[in-house]
């Protein structure tokens, strides 16, 4: 069974536990600047929106990469960056319509969400269940249910 990250912004409080968990898993430090999930604050509207790669099936980044440094992890469905092969050309960052693959100056290669190899840290760290890791066939099911309840 394939699983996906499901994000429900209306539950998010902007605490950035997810960013810390992500950066800690990826770099060993608590460093929101290096997180692959980002939480955006819309102050005037009073809204917090977590955002990260949705692991497209026909991933733009993967197709754009000239050196095949982005590959599919068959077990998780994640599109993963092979850091040894990536040449840092940034074409993928142009190709991704969502901006969720980014160049990192320190490592000189790009970074993106890799679902932590199938056991992602951000949903575990999120105190409000704004991020959950669910059966890929069920993304949106909760929201559908909530709307169904209102009809």
């Amino acid at each position, binding site marked *: 069974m394939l699983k996906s990250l499901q994000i429900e912004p209306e539950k998010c409080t902007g*605490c950035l536990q997810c960013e810390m968990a992500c950066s800690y898993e990826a770099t060993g430090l608590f460093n929101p600047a290096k997180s692959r999930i980002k939480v955006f604050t819309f102050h005037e509207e*009073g809204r917090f929106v977590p955002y990260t790669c949705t692991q497209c099936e026909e991933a733009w980044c993967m197709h754009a990469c000239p050196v095949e440094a982005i590959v599919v992890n068959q077990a998780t469905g994640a599109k993963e960056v092979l850091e040894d092969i990536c040449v840092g050309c940034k074409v993928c960052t142009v190709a991704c319509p969502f901006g969720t693959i980014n160049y990192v100056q320190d490592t000189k290669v790009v970074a993106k969400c890799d679902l932590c190899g199938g056991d992602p840290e951000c949903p575990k760290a999120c105190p409000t269940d704004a991020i959950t890791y669910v059966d890929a066939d069920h993304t949106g099911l909760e929201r559908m249910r909530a709307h169904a309840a209102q009809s």
Partner: protein
Amino acid sequence: MAWTKNVLRINLTDGSISKEPLNMEWANDYLGQRGLATKYLVEEIDPNCDALGPDNKLIMTTGPLTGTMVSTGGRYSVVTKSPLTGVLACSNSGGFIGNELKNAGWDMIIFEGKSPKPVYLYIENEKAELVPADEIWGKSVWEADEYLHKKYQDPLLRIAAVGRSAEAGCLYSGIINDLHRAAGRSGVGTVMASKNLKAVAIRGTRGVGNIQDSAAFMKATTEAKKVLAENAVTGEGLPALGTQVLMNVINEMGALPTRNMKEVQFEGAGDISGEAMLEPRESDGKPNLTTNAACFGCTIACGRISTIDRTHFTIENKPEYWGNSGGLEFEAAFALGSDCGVNDMDVMTYAQFLCNEDGYDPISFGCTVAAAMELFELGAITTKETDGIEFKFGSAEALAKAAEWVATGEGFGKDLGLGSKRLCEKYGHPDLSMTVKGQEFPAYDPRGIQGMGLAYATSNRGACHLRGYTVASEVLGIPVKTDPLETDGKAELVKAFQDGSAVVDSAGICAFTTFAWSMEDIAPQIDAACEGDWSVDKCMEVGERIWNLERDFNNAAGMTAADDTLPKRLLKDAANVGPAKGRVNDLGKMLPEYYELRGWTADGKLTDETRARFGL
């Protein structure tokens, strides 16, 4: 470890900037943030220096847990000598800047001297530079924030700034970070402005590490987060209603300071409560509260994000206030509301927005307005001073005007910016000032909650709820229920809360965790993160050492046992209604026992033995 072990020292007089290693011997004795920065300050300044002169220093400081995955680990503090009280000031704030400072690689910044011209400090990891602030001096915090974000093209730059109130010399100006979080009390912003320092803008991308035992730390913090989630206050009450969860509770027990503390219950409490913030309003069907919000790393998320009714007289022609911003917390709601006799939530939210926009403390501000209202009703202040406005209890117009005046220091705002003590002295009624050591009261009348009387009288920064929140025990039964009208055992209770708070404030976490966490939950998290032994006993010893260090400084700054008191009103005039009817605060019964427990002399000084015990 967990400390970055780096201190950034900025001499504003000559513009020199240097890096020095953190004094780890002191870190072992004072932990971090409040305790450790106080140790630095005490060692470096003359207790009798002019708080607004170049000899005072101002320290921005994080704790060893700041910037880690511990819940609420985004806190930072500002430590300096207060212009309002003349003793130590230590104001704690959440938001995001504490983490950013830590991520840039610094435990603390020590500002000394006074800049010849207005400047701001820009930090990008290792790099720190003072930049002329001509473009933002004379501007509000919100304008400065917008300018700096634009200038550096960095939406994630974290900014702390002072507003126009501080520049105008308001004695209770704070430092606002992330638009609406505040190191609010005791005039720390006034000190910052007196140094011609407008803002600190930080970008940190180095990461926080140095965790002594990572596996143990992740385990301890995960368990402790569960405790917060499962607790009724931190898991339900605070996220849903914020600290405003307390408004109706405190009113019912006859401890809600009302009309400059003349009364202990407010007939309009329901209108300004946390519950009322959820009621849809007539004009647009939206409630005052849009959402709750968290500070960095916080799994409680008590923050209020609110709007004002667009049809309200304060903002109908001011679209710049139509959006969301930081709304009412309980302390502000009492000060702007019941204490002024005002039950109009929109005007209160407006005043709160201005407090954030121009950086002044809503508690001290509201209480000073309340004192001015009482002086007005007595005829000591007239419409001559108030620009023709009837400055009466309950007047939304007066509150709105007062907030606008203090924001810029214009007109009667100059007088209101003096704080309640100096205002009441100026207009000939010093007894009407509801202050301890010159600082205004928070939201708990000590006639109805006896232990709080002792906590206020002995607080090391003047009247304050965060220096020993016995409300937890006396009202909410945390960790054990004590009778709020009883004085027996309160000396011990106050001391335990004071010492515990000193640890929490020195670790880098939020005081509100202690609704759910005891030292048994906190110590293991510190212990896993930091080198050395951080058992419960060690933590409590450090807390007590910090308390004594602060007291010792305050004594040296001229404070005596005579200052450990409450306004006459609370000691002589009995509560007129409610469960505490007929009661005054029996401070006299608690204070001598407290001194003894502390190991102080009858005149409130540290004995030699106490000094030796803590190596002071």
